[in-house]
């Protein structure tokens, strides 16, 4: 509900409290419209204060409602009705002030833009803007029309395309906010004094002869600026996300027209985005599926609880220091163990670096950073782990080394403690053999860099108990990561499918496609990094090791002397030309000091180019299909157990294009029948890895999609 009140100075206060719930039973627009009715019936009014708080329910309901929209006719009609309510408010003949009491986003920020004057609480960590752009949705209630008229084309585009949200200081500079205050009282008094000074007030764009600051799209330098933004969108690889193009079109087309026409143009682009696949995929993945996973939907239902006030991380290397850092961030005391002081110092230094980077960026205060750092206690002494609830080993990816630390830890850890092995490939069923209590043993797969990667794969075995799984799940949530639960199998889920991407890249190279083309095609398909570049990053030697680990277990049916093309390439790189990847400054790329990397010029002396001008779509299909098909196999085998986790794992784990909604949603969008047909085509030309699993046939028969 919107709280309605009137004070003794005849000022109406409309308060949108943060805890108010808006949903299908309590429609925001209806409620707002009722307020306007009431205002119109009031006798003496001097002005209106819109008191806005960070209400999450309005925005999430708005997004969920959009998810249901499939029919453009209805969608357009609805948008126009909702817009007319905001417009009705905007054109009320009194001064209207928005006071922003907390961070304000999306629809609520659009409400603020309907006011003549906007004042925010002066707090640096408060943000205002349009975060839904990241979900493929642009403001659609007149917000873009108003913002363009308020601050001009260039600033509007800059804000919407790149910043999306910003703090008080920056928005005051841009002219989006008009004032700031240090307390709620000051906010209110500033609002009242604005109202007292202005008896009547129209938006500047509702006054005759209004001109947009900086001119319309074909005036001044605007054409050049707009063309430059278009190129930048391309450069940032955002062309797969139609929202950016829609924003530029809406802003530039509308700038030379009346408010009403500009608003209709905004609606048309908005409807196109809302009813399109991309925004639905982004909302479903980033909001719905991730939310479902994080809320514990896939966690076993029980009351087990563990606060994890103290944990131990074994190994302070690349993964270990990151795990220690994210745990300390979540207020958990960490024993960071390693075999030498030197290693420990290196790990601590890395943690310190992340913290000071965050302080520099203004993300955390210096005191907090010091406090977090003090939670990490370095040690070389196993006896220190006796009171830890969870021991995570993140030592080198070698069975023997892992076996050793498992045994050594169990000598010291308390009986109820959970032991988790962090690994991307080594079978948990093999590792838990070294444990005396396999029910307390589980696999955790963190991604590098741990402080930035949101996903964690939890690998359970038949022996791990429900308690162990539940508690580890809760731990992952406590450190603010998104856990997907998978069953033990070679490569688990993410490594197994991601590996298909790199292998396909290598197969293309082996078949004679130019390396640069493999790389650029992957980017065009929506991947953040090409298969060759990513192999260099992982280290080619390690990739070869992973191949042996997964390949020998998964595809043992192949005859011994059958060598797959990707293995051939990996072998060649590691053993023949000894180019191990980025860490050794030579891999598929050359890494000159202080200069941009470039593809190793001799690569094609060994893998001779056969296809100079191939059909790019074929390559894109091959890269996407191998991953989608391997996911289906994982799903069929029960390695991954849900549609949601499969999609989220692919997007957050290895950067499968989010606009495609994840590996299984990609098949849904492609259409199962069409997908099967294309897979069989690819199988007949490029090998049995493209043969669709049986489950696809079953689903086609019963007319199902993945869900």
């Amino acid at each position, binding site marked *: 509900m919107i709280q309605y009140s009137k004070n003794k100075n005849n000022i109406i206060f409309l308060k949108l409290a943060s805890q108010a719930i808006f949903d299908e039973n309590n429609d925001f627009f209806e409620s707002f419209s009722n307020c306007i009715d009431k205002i119109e019936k009031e006798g003496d009014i001097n002005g209106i204060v819109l008191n806005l708080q960070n209400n999450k329910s309005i925005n999430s309901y708005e997004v969920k409602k959009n998810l249901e929209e499939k029919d453009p006719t209805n969608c357009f009609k609805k948008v126009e009705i909702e817009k007319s309510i905001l417009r009705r408010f905007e054109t009320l003949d009194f001064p209207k002030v928005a006071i922003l009491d907390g961070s304000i986003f999306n629809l609520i920020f659009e409400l603020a833009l309907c006011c003549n004057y906007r004042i925010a609480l002066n707090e640096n960590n408060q943000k205002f803007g349009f975060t839904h752009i990241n979900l493929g949705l642009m403001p659609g209630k007149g917000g873009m029309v108003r913002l363009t008229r308020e601050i001009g084309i260039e600033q509007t585009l800059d804000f919407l395309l790149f910043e999306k949200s910003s703090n008080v200081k920056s928005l005051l500079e841009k002219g989006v906010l008009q004032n700031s205050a240090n307390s709620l009282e000051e906010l209110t008094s500033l609002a009242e004094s604005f109202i007292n000074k202005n008896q009547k007030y129209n938006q500047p764009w509702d006054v005759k002869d209004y001109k947009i600051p900086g001119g319309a799209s074909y005036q001044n330098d605007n*054409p050049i600026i707009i*063309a430059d933004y278009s190129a930048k969108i391309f450069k940032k690889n955002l062309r797969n996300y139609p929202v950016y193009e829609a924003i530029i079109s809406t802003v530039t087309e509308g700038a030379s027209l009346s408010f009403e026409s500009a608003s209709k143009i905004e609606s048309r682009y908005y409807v196109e985005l809302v009813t399109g696949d991309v925004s639905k995929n982004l909302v479903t993945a980033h909001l719905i599926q991730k939310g479902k996973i994080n809320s514990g939907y896939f966690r076993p239902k029980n009351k087990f609880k563990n606060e994890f006030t103290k944990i131990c991380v074994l190994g302070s290397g690349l993964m270990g220091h990151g795990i220690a850092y994210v745990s300390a961030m979540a207020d958990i005391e960490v024993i960071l163990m390693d075999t030498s002081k030197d290693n420990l110092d290196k790990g601590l230094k890395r943690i310190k670096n992340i913290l000071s980077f965050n302080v520099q960026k203004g993300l955390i205060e210096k005191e907090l950073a010091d406090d977090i750092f003090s939670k990490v206690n370095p040690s070389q002494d196993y006896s220190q782990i006796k009171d830890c609830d969870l021991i995570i080993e993140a030592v080198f990816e070698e069975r023997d080394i892992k076996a050793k630390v498992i045994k050594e830890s169990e000598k010291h850890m308390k009986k109820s403690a959970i032991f988790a092995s962090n690994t991307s490939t080594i079978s948990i069923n093999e590792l838990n053999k070294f444990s005396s209590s396999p029910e307390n043993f589980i696999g955790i797969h963190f991604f590098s860099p741990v402080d930035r990667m949101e996903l964690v794969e939890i690998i359970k075995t038949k022996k791990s108990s429900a308690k162990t799984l539940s508690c580890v799940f809760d731990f992952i949530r406590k450190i603010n990561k998104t856990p997907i639960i998978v069953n033990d199998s070679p490569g688990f889920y993410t490594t197994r499918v991601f590996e298909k991407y790199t292998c396909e890249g290598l197969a293309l190279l082996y078949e004679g496609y130019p390396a640069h083309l493999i790389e650029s095609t992957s980017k065009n398909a929506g991947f953040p990094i090409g298969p060759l570049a990513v192999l260099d990053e992982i280290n080619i030697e390690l990739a070869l090791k992973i191949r042996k680990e997964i390949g020998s277990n998964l595809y043992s049916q192949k005859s011994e002397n059958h060598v797959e093309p990707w293995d051939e390439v990996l072998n060649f790189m590691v053993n023949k030309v000894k180019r191990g990847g980025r860490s050794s400054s030579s891999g598929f790329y050359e890494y000159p000091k202080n200069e941009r990397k470039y593809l190793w010029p001799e690569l094609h002396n060994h893998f001779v180019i056969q296809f100079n001008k*191939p059909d790019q779509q074929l390559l894109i299909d091959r890269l996407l299909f191998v991953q989608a098909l391997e996911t289906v196999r994982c799903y069929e085998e029960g390695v991954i157990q849900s549609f949601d986790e499969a999609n989220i794992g692919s997007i957050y784990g290895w950067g499968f294009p989010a606009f495609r909604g994840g590996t299984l949603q990609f098949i849904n969008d492609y259409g199962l029948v069409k997908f099967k047909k294309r897979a069989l085509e690819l199988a007949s030309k490029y090998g049995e890895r493209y043969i669709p699993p049986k489950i696809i046939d079953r689903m086609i028969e019963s007319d199902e999609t993945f869900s």
Partner: protein
Amino acid sequence: MNEAFIFDSIRSPRGKNKNGSLSQITPVDLLSKLMLALEKKYQLDTSLINDVIIGCVMPVNDQGANIGKIAAQYSGWDVDIPSMQINRCCGSGLEAVNLAAMKIRSGWEDLIVSGGIECMSRVPIGADGGPMAFETKVASRINYVPQGIGADLIATIEGFTRQDLDAYALMSQKRASEAIKNKRFRSLVPIYDQNDLLLIAEDEHVRPNTSLMQLSKLKPAFEKIGKNGYDEIALQKYIHIEEISHLHTAGNSSGIVDGASITLVGSKINVNSLGLKPRARILSVATCSTDPTIMLEGPAPATKKALSMANLTIDDIDLIEVNEAFAAVVLKFMKEMNIDNFDKINVNGGSISLGHPLGATGSILLGTLMDELEERDLSLGLVTLCVAGGMGIATIIERV
């Protein structure tokens, strides 16, 4: 079939951009000076002119609203002369002539003033906006990149080096300065201001003392915008190219200048009744469309089309004017047409040395070609230009 004859083609000198002499008069005034010069030269009864067709690529502001009609009126020409302004981008000036030829050959009209104008100091490139470059969803769907990127892409694909391009540019400068010294541009008309003070008598853009060393020091002109995103837009289409080499500079690309030209085209009737003497006849005209991203590959296919229409081969042609929009455009044209030396190509320089007043260039090149055919007493000539948006245009003439 009615023959389309060219009676004459005259042009203004090409003035430097912004600070040049021609920036001091309006486009209408400039065009009008040429009209008056033509009228005076032949004591032309302007009431006999059936149409005025003027090419202009930025037909806005000073050049807007059908500049041909305004200039004819401003010149005091007969009030009954209709006129139109056309835009086939860089092919406009030649298209105006070709269109006039088609009208004459149809037999429906007998005398037409065609030509083109571009005062780039006053109405700069981009002044007409346009969705190709400035509307994001259009630019994105058609993979639009600025022409310089297309030129660099041609050089990259064809393997032209910076030295190749600079050497060509140097030749253009040498040939142009020789031509000026030897008074080879007989089509040139000096332009005077309202006080009859001489504004400009010769082409201003040429740099006779340019050296290869100087040319090699110039910075690539399109690297910055390329790196800003346009390279990737082009490469999304040209996926077999790893990286675009940015080789074109201000020195080996066409110059931005002011200029105008008109060409008088008519039928045989005029020869008898007006006593006009035909200098050449138009054998064939052609246009074509090519990939809009690389944009500049039109001259060869347009030429092939025109040659086949006239039943000729490229070896039959005595002199060729292929517009020097960028050095790579000329080199690419030669490669595609199997021309292995520069003997017939742009013998008096071209747009690199003399400048490229967009809408006027086609008509200017035709005049230059006719002058030189006469000078050398040769017969067949070809004019061809690459055209923005991915087109090409060509005209083949024969001296009479």
